[in-house]
């Protein structure tokens, strides 16, 4: 995946940002704390917001910022502009997720308070096409972003630096 966060339009920090991670405004998902917004063209902004939360609940990494999840999912919106089947798969799948959340907790999925409560909802839909598609795509589109590798310590390409022969291939010192 060649995309990175530059394609998410940077927004100036909104004054009075609340504790909520995301806001919806004029056709975009906005993350005031991280100062970015993702404009959606085909999907409802609320749908994109829920997708991002769902992605974080599938592969939760506390040290990875929301924008990396947003980048990983952006193609659902881009592709939905020309792919009606995908669009309805996403919209209907997310509607179902919200409906389950409402039945159990009386709120939208994104407003369910605890991760464990949201995960319990995801367990109910994990065999369904939307979940399968999001999870199997995300395992590549999230972890294949070079920008997230440093969070895990992974160093990426090495031949250009001459390998690790003189850069610590055997530097373990605690054994």
């Amino acid at each position, binding site marked *: 995946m060649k995309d990175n966060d530059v394609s998410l339009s940077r927004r100036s920090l909104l004054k009075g940002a609340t504790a909520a991670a995301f806001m919806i405004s004029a056709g975009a998902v906005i993350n005031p704390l991280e100062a970015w917004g993702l404009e959606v063209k085909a999907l409802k902004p609320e749908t994109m917001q829920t997708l991002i939360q769902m992605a974080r*609940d599938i592969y939760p990494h506390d040290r990875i910022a929301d924008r990396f999840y947003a980048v990983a999912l952006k193609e659902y919106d881009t592709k939905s502009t020309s792919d009606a089947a995908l669009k309805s798969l996403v919209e209907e799948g997310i509607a179902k997720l919200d409906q389950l959340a409402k039945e159990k907790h009386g709120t939208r999925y994104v407003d369910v308070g605890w991760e464990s409560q949201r995960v319990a909802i995801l367990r109910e839909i994990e065999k369904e096409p939307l979940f399968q598609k999001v999870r199997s795509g995300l395992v590549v589109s999230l*972890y294949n972003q070079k920008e997230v590798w440093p969070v895990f310590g992974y160093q990426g390409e090495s031949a250009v630096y001459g390998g690790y022969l003189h850069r*610590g291939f*055997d530097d373990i010192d605690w054994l």
Partner: protein
Amino acid sequence: MAAKFDLNDDSVVVIVGSGAGGGTLGTELALKGIKTVILEAGARHEIEDFINDEWDSFAQLAWADMRTTSGSWRVARDFANLPAWIVKAVGGSTTHWAGASLRFQEHEFRTRSVYGDIKGANLLDWPITLKELEPYYEKAEFRMGVTRTNGIAGLPGNNNYKVFEKGAKAIGYQDVSTGRMAINSDERDGRPGCQQSGFCFQGCKFGAKWSTLYAEIPKGEATGNLEVRPNAHVLRIEHDASGKVTGVVYADKEGNQHRQKARVVAVAGNSIESPRLLLNSASSIYPDGLANSSGQVGRNYMRHMTGSVYAVFDRPVRMWRGTTMAGIVRDEADHKPDRGFVGGYELETLSLGLPFMAAFLDPGAWGREFTSALDSYENMAGLWIVGEDMPQESNRVTLSSEKDQFGMRVANVHFDDHPNDIAMRAHAYRQGSAMYEAVGATRTFPTTPYPSTHNLGTNRMSETPRDGVVNKWGQSHDIPNLFVSDGSQFTTGGAENPTLTIVALAIRQAEYIAGQMGQKVI
């Protein structure tokens, strides 16, 4: 200069595939003065084209044409159209391989005699012995520059190896080392020593690791007797009224078909494509496919009993630095039936980069149990298990009803573990975890087998034509000028990584083909 042969030149030997088997055979024949054409389905990417990035490299080199799966193996569920992780490119899977180069043990050539009649297993003794193969192992080790042979120094151990070695010794293992690797520990054969870059699976950008792409084929081409034709996907092998093969039909990049005539055809497309090609070549004389009077073509598919153990520690390991397969424990390699299974296994260090670790640690898993493991990626060490699996007639490559881009039926790979495989894997998971726990692992992960990297046995060698597809020279029992030159000839799989044996067999086969051609028998 590389040769260029005419499509109607029926004096050439045609080899299908340019990997460990085909690339070696073609080079060896060319060195003996025999005109040879290697037809390779994939493109030719040279060292400078290789990419230090797991998914990008996978897209560049891996075989991604359609395949289907069935059976109870987990790969059929997690990777339904990717039964094997192998290569479609000049050099074949020797571009991807890690370089571990081990000889079979003496008893592994006669498992039916030594292990006895194991229920559900189609064990058979090889028609050759270790003694017969030893001179060819020597030649193979010399040309591949295998460390700890021919006076070549072993490789230094990286971080992943140091953890592995300390753990192995802590639980009493003795046969622990950085192994026998076809990776230069120092400059040799015009190629540099290993720079410990850690991308052995993505094509070595230094050429330190042996591959037919740059360590064999150019030597064959320099004789003027070898032509390697990339983007030439062989669709079927043809024969005359007497039953002898006369050439092959292949599709080029644009999908145009060409007929290359041949005096001899050698099939080396790896153990899924080779039987597929023989089956797709069925004709009125050979209604069940070529070389298949025994009905064994495609059967006895083996993939080694594999699995991995990853472990997390409280401090960094950084296993991705340095050779991907950096060391080996051989203490479990013998046949010791008191462990509750026949045959043995090797433990070898292994590392995956973060993108592949996410995809392969526990395919399909999600949630915090999974992501907390990845959060500790920097503190992980890892090993791979490779053991002898039981050949079973029902583990099988057949033609699927699905078709590929050329309209040819694709391969379906059916696999179920044998109870012996399961017992051996459980033992290896325990031992591997114990090694890491002995040096302070806080968590261990018995990891399921990846899509197959070692694919073996689907055109097995046998003494009698009834039991197998080829004789002790890899020559078809049914058709004298048709050969099999890859790992599909293996009668049984042994506990060792297969490539050294594939190369030794190819060198031996080249001698035989040259002799038979010289005597005009073929």
